[in-house]
């Protein structure tokens, strides 16, 4: 007997992007994190992080704001409403995979 496997979001279902989204999900609503801080938190190289951020931005899961802090260009990042929803659905799907019976009872 095989349990029905919920479809997992391919945008998030890659380790690096999953970690990006998980880290940004901790920010309070209305807050943004600058690129270097996120890079430091994840321990990724700048180029690598940029590639993953591009994919998340293309999927409209994150909002990227380019601004200036004095004369230094700064990139600010946060989850979009859509991204937060996708992350919530992804974690819910994982829980359903691990405990298919339990998840049916919870609304």
């Amino acid at each position: 007997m095989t349990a029905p496997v919920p479809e997992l979001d391919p945008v998030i279902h890659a380790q690096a992007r999953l970690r990006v989204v998980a880290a940004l999900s901790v920010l309070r609503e209305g807050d943004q994190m600058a690129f270097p801080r996120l890079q430091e938190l994840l321990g990724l190289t700048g180029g690598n992080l940029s590639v993953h951020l591009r994919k998340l931005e293309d999927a409209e899961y994150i909002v990227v704001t380019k601004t200036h802090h004095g004369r230094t260009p700064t990139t600010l990042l946060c989850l979009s409403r859509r991204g937060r929803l996708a992350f919530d659905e992804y974690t819910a799907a994982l829980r359903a995979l691990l405990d298919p019976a339990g998840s049916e009872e919870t609304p």
Partner: protein
Amino acid sequence: MSKDEAAPVSAAESLRLIEAQRDAAVRSLSPDPRLIYWPWGLAWLIGFGLLFLRHGPHERVRVNMPNELPLATLFALMIIAFLVSGVAGARANRQISGDSSLRGLRYGLSWLAGFAGNAVICAHFSNLLPPPEVGLLWSATSVGLVGVLYLAGSATWQSRDLFVLGIWLTISNIAGVLAGPGWHSLVISVAGGGGLLVAGFVVWLRWRHHP
């Protein structure tokens, strides 16, 4: 396919990865509670403790020391506490912008406004009162203000810990004032300073094991 692009091996591993990353982010984005609470707790415990020993109830001197030493110690320790907790908070919030920054700025300005107003009021009445009552006036209004600002902070940051601490300090302060000059210092040293130390420990335990 690079390791980054690879999907986690299993759903369980995926969930673990999410939780580990969220834990790390929470611990990075909120300062170590010990650095926020303990310097203030020690300042009150030691500073008000010395005030009680030098300027006790009924102007009794329990331990002989220079008249100004307790207050000088209290202020010096409070400056250190301000610096330690300020640096810890700023480090946690570095490169974070948005609504939280504005909230933090306004909360900080509330402290400044509160203590500026309080100092003017206390200075105005200080010449009219005998020395023990002057000491009580300054410390009771200051501690009362701290309690209320913690309560306001609990509403701003949705923090139950700050609410409990604010209520505790307010009750301790009222009890100290009713007990009178000298006793107030003892109550604030033990219940106030001790309360801050306990609060720092409790919040730290939760921060360390963030779910």
